[in-house]
């Protein structure tokens, strides 16, 4: 009986087939995530269409500086993530963990900045409910419900990503990944880049509505 590669599960012919199946599975998951966030983007589109002036007024109360800093942080974290995968592919084993660590730190930085922003939002009475800022039109509460829901869900995704990245980091430090096996690092990268893309859409929708007026 031919000797089987220990990293290949028995249902696969070889490592390549296993990697392709894993990628397809991850992209299927991402497709469901697109629809998951899609529902919220759809709700945003419909309400923005109906209550555009209220959405514009509400958007001006978000802090564009926090949003911009976080965008640059996430774009940079995507870059470091891509470099981690690249290091694995090139079999530069010692570079994988440092790039993953950088990505984790940038993810944590994103959450810290978001925490400061949430604190300011609460202070400015931007949480929908009885204590909502009375100077804003009533429909601004819809905007801010979507703001908290979308950024909150995105934040949960970032937190989950940091958790997975931490597992990848620990395994990379133990030398589990190399040029011959790095699929988990690649799949984590796909997830992380997807989370980045979601933020790229959230940023103009939540922070930049009618800023020029």
């Amino acid at each position, binding site marked *: 009986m031919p000797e089987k590669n220990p990293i290949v599960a028995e249902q696969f012919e070889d490592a390549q087939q296993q990697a392709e199946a894993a990628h397809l599975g991850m992209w299927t998951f991402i497709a469901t995530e697109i*629809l998951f966030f899609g529902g919220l983007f759809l709700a945003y589109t419909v309400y923005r269409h109906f209550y555009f002036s209220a959405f514009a007024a509400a958007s001006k109360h978000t802090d564009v500086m926090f949003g911009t800093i976080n965008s640059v942080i996430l774009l940079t974290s995507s870059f470091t993530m891509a470099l981690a995968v690249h290091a694995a592919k090139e079999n530069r084993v010692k570079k994988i963990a440092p790039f993953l660590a950088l990505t984790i730190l940038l993810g944590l930085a994103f959450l810290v900045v978001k925490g400061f922003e949430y604190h300011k939002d609460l202070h400015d009475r931007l949480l929908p409910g009885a204590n909502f800022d009375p100077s804003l039109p009533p429909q601004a509460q819809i905007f801010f419900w979507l703001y908290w829901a979308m950024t909150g869900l995105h934040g949960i995704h970032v937190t989950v990503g940091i958790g997975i990245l931490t597992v990848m980091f620990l395994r990379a430090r133990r030398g589990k990944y190399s040029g011959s096996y790095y699929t988990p690092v690649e799949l984590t990268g796909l997830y992380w880049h997807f989370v980045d893309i979601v933020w790229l859409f959230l940023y103009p929708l939540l922070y930049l509505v009618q800023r*020029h007026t």
Partner: protein
Amino acid sequence: MNANHPTKKLFALIWIVLVVLHFTILGIAYYLKFFDTQLIAALVFIQMMLIILFFMEVRYTMKLIWMFVAAGFFWLCIQFVLVASDYLTRAWH
């Protein structure tokens, strides 16, 4: 999978372009009074495509993955078109 993959230099270039596009979007939002939404949407779309094609390496992968990526967005389009065809054609107010 395809053996080709992007270089570190290309990744760095893509990152710079993404950040430049980001600040361009910010500038448009503050200084452009007309077609700002359309222009910002186009630039965010370009950012998304750069990440998908290069950081996620879809450009270098098998065609079946391309189909899965396209299917995700196709279903999203169906979701938007069906809902918009209802909300935007009825007098809800």
